[in-house]
């Protein structure tokens, strides 16, 4: 009995100790795992903060570029029209008799200036972007561009419009505006084709022109290439990709692939 009792005592004590040690290790493991989880959450938060900072930075940069565009457009179109109207009004002032034709011209010029101002306001308004779906916003922007009569615009859409987050919509729309502005300023194109394709998980925005084209690598290396590099950086910020194909004399083809989520 005594030997058996000793055995039982040893077994009970040992098993209890083993159980307690196992429990302690389990809690230790839980604590370690929790610490790792905490680290992971902190890293995720840091990444999220960086992402938001980059996004904000991009929006600020785009805002800055947009201001430049407004200033240029006001100077080139609205400013010219209003200056002309002013000169015409001075002439009309000097004339004793009322020149109906001149007054009608002044009226037209002021009307055109007002239309241009409205177009500029529309193209800049984020509110308008919120109200429209992406393809509608693109279509309106292209109509505005075509009114410059500098090139002919062709627009096609494949698939049904899908919901795109506001952030993405604004960024991609501003990128597209920048692409169109570049065509307007540098490409000397007379034909621009814009194609929107809504796939299942992503959408493609395709812009091609028949302008002078350029050597992609060269532009990337130059200070002028900042716009292209920004475009690539902003697209990757919203999880998308950009493909730029261009050759001197053969126009430019830019493709943006953006995931919905």
């Amino acid at each position, binding site marked *: *009995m*005594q030997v058996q*009792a000793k055995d*039982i*005592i040893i*077994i*009970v*004590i040992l*098993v*209890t100790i083993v*159980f*307690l040690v*196992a*429990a*302690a290790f*389990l*809690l230790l493991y*839980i*604590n370690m*795992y*929790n610490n790792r*989880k*905490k680290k992971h*959450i*902190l890293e995720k938060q840091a990444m999220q903060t960086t992402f938001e900072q980059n996004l904000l930075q991009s929006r600020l940069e785009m805002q800055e570029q947009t201001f430049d565009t407004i200033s240029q457009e006001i100077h080139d179109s609205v400013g010219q029209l209003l200056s002309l109207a002013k000169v015409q009004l001075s002439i009309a002032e000097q004339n004793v008799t009322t020149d109906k034709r001149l007054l009608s011209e002044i009226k037209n010029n002021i009307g055109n200036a007002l239309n241009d101002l409205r177009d500029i306001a529309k193209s800049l308004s984020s509110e308008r972007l919120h109200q429209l779906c992406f393809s509608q916003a693109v279509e309106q922007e292209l109509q505005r561009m075509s009114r410059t009569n500098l090139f002919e615009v062709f627009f096609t859409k494949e698939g049904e419009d899908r919901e795109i987050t506001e952030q993405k919509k604004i960024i991609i729309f501003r990128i597209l505006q920048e692409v169109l502005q570049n065509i307007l300023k540098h490409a000397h194109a007379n034909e621009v084709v814009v194609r929107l394709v809504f796939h299942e998980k992503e959408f493609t925005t395709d812009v091609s022109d028949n302008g002078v084209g350029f050597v992609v690598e060269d532009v990337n290396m130059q200070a002028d290439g900042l716009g292209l590099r920004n475009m690539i950086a902003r697209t990757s910020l919203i999880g998308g990709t950009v493909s730029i194909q261009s050759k001197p004399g053969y126009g430019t083809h830019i493709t943006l692939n953006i995931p919905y989520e």
Partner: protein
Amino acid sequence: MAHSIPFPITCVFEFICFLVSVLSLRERNKKDWIRYFPLYLFFVFAFDLYGYIESKFIHAQNNYWLYNCFKLIDGWFCFLILYKISATYYTKKIVYILEMTLGASVFIYEAITIGFSQYFRLTDLTNNVCVIFSSLMYYYYLLKDDEMIKLSVSTPFWIVAGFFFFSFGSITTSLFFKYLADINKQLGIPVRYIIFIAINLILYSCWSYAFICRYKQRT
């Protein structure tokens, strides 16, 4: 060998833990599960003290009936607390009801088959297994959750840790209960008593620390 009833040192741990709970949980929220603890600890302390006095001075034949009834209430309390703590992560009332029903069923079964003059070993084991299961469920959901928690100062974590250690540690004594009772009777070696001192020390240390954590979070 003479079989003497040693003073239950666990009463001292229980009383200290009770004092800590009273001092730390003074301004507790009425909806907070932790408010049950001072009352429960006082009940456990008074119960253990009464059990000792009864065996030592009233010379009752045995007080297993008292501890058997206590086991049932104790089990229900543990299930309730674990259910309330786990409710932060998941609400599975069915688990709580099943555990309570299982504990009560085994208790009734033992009451019918072996009577109140014997220790309800199976009830004890069932309670322990259920508590371990609920504790592991809590830990599983705690790790699965996305919220960031500092475990070293988390009150629920330490409360469950106390339950977990106690249940894990007392499983062996429940399994070998008969042998240990014989050994105690014949050789006077209170193995179960010694083990219980150790696991009660761990249990009440974890709980006291949990109450202090709650107190520190409040102030």
